[in-house]
């Protein structure tokens, strides 16, 4: 009551704050693109944009899952390991299109099961998300190494090659997959009961329990989804890189967290959106590409990433305060 009475006075100020909060990341992305485009016109060439989108899609798919997990106050470090394992699975069959579906099933099983173990450890055993997903990450890595004896061989089914590395009149197929997945999960998050429960579980666990939400189930669901999406991203990424090694997707665990944080998803849970996370991923890809386009040493990618992580997190903390 008191709040609604006060709101007219504060409305303009709140409006600007809201605008900054909602569109700040759009502006950053736009500024990056414009500045890099001016400094290096090749950056805006059609095939470079197409190339960036091709690279962005697998990361974007992982980010969707990471956002769901962070929304329930979690963190998923196992995504890169799931990706690599899915990629190894992709090469473990005949390498023909006839095996594309079995590959998909086995890879998904790995991803979903990893997510389930993560979720169970975190909810039922009260293990911190960092450690639980670190442990499954290590475990999966060991299993993968033991299975491949260090050097995976075999071919990725051609259909995954198409999905991961080819375009349809300049629009990458993997981008289409990302857009469909992002749309589905955005709707799920914003319109379904599950979505509202995710926000409440992450934003206010006590309240969630009081209104009768089974917070454990919601949390587990988020990790299972994240595992499944990581497996899908792994399959698509194996088609992008073509040659599979044990480290496909290395660095994606941290990049996906960074993207989510840059996109305004709060590590404390309950705040943020999939679109925000995807914009964060876009910024990362643009920054990486810009470093190359501007002829800087490639090590600057890592350094800039580090600076961006800290700066973005600091900005959002200020806004929340």
């Amino acid at each position: 009551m008191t709040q609604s009475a006060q709101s007219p006075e504060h409305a303009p100020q709140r409006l600007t704050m809201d605008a900054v909060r909602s569109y700040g990341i759009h502006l950053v992305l736009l500024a990056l693109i414009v500045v890099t485009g001016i400094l290096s016109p090749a950056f805006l060439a059609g095939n470079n944009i197409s190339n960036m989108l091709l690279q962005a899609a697998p990361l974007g798919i992982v980010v969707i899952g990471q956002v769901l997990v962070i929304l329930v106050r979690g963190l998923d470090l196992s995504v890169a390991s799931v990706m690599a394992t899915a990629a190894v699975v992709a090469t473990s069959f005949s390498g023909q299109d006839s095996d594309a579906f079995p590959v998909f099933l086995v890879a998904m099983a790995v991803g979903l099961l990893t997510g389930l173990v993560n979720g169970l450890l975190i909810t039922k055993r009260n293990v911190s998300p960092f450690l639980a997903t670190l442990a499954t990450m290590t475990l999966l890595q060991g299993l993968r190494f033991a299975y491949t004896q260090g050097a995976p061989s075999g071919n990725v089914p051609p259909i995954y090659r198409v999905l991961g590395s080819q375009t349809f009149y300049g629009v990458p197929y993997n981008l289409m997959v990302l857009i469909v997945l992002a749309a589905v999960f955005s709707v799920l998050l914003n319109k379904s009961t599950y979505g509202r429960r995710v926000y409440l579980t992450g934003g206010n666990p006590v309240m969630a329990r009081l209104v009768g939400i089974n917070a454990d189930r919601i949390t587990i669901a988020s990790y299972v989804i994240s595992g499944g999406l990581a497996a899908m991203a792994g399959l698509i990424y194996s088609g992008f890189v073509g040659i599979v090694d044990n480290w496909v997707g290395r660095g994606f665990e941290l990049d996906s967290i960074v993207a989510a944080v840059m996109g305004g998803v709060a590590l404390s849970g309950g705040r943020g959106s999939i679109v925000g996370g995807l914009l964060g991923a876009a910024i990362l890809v643009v920054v990486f590409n810009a470093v190359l386009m501007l002829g800087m040493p490639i090590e600057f990618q890592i350094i800039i990433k580090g600076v961006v992580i800290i700066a973005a997190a600091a900005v959002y903390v200020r806004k929340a305060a």
Partner: protein
Amino acid sequence: MTSFASTFTYLTKRRGGLLTVIALIFVLVVFGMIVSDKFGTSSNAINILEQSTALALVSLGQTLVIITGGIDLSVGSMVSLASVLLSGIANGDPTMMWVALITIMAVGVLVGLINAGASIYLGVHPLIITLGTGAILQGITLLYTQTPIGKMPKGFDELAYGRILGLPIGAVFTIAAFVLTAIFLRKVPLGRYIYATGDDAMGAQLMGLPRKKVLFVAYGFCGLMASVAAIFLVARLGAGQPYTGQNFTLTSITPVVVGGTLLSGGRGGVIGTLMGVYLVSLLNNLLNFLDLSSHYQLIIQGLIVIIAVSVYVENKKRV
């Protein structure tokens, strides 16, 4: 009375966890001696001690940070940077060696202070801050060199292969560092404040405990230990390599957790960590004897973390 009771429970719980780890070490030793007659030899024991030095030192710093309720994900990159700087600056010149040693220790402390300061003044969780500084340090390391660089003056490998009373110098140094830190944590007020800050940051601040100082000390110490670990690594390997430290970031957390320090802060101790380091090193050594490839070490390490955290978390819940 209540506080006495809770202190009592706290101590028995911690000692209980420690006893479990020591019992596991004992079981592994017996098992190893049954499996191979070379396992139980003193040369193998010395070998294990030698190999565990760097991990032990990094984990020591990590323990203090984790007790404050934080985490340091920049240690791996710090080890890499320190090791290339050390052999790069010294480059075989004994007079430059001291400059190099002092430089890398100063850099280590500085990075730790930056981690703490950024976390305090930006109000961002140390997980994100140290992730960021870790990336920056790795980038700087690769800008400095992409291949093994420089060499240490003659006789520097004495640090790795020399003996004090028959024990490797590194092992003696490690044990001394752990014992001193344990005494600091128990007897010195600042040491107690580290626990208080990690257990209940708000409460500690309300009581007027110096939270900022505690964080600066813990992270500064952690950075310093990463540099010291790099010294022993370079002594063993002969030259600094830009990816030397990569694995330390996450492997340094395993012994801490296995030793009973909770990631949520306020509980645990360095002696548990030392036992955790020996347990992990012993296990890796044993797996080598069993002729199992290093792939299985990862599986076992993952399982150990899962089991350890499950056990300890259960304990905390009951308390």
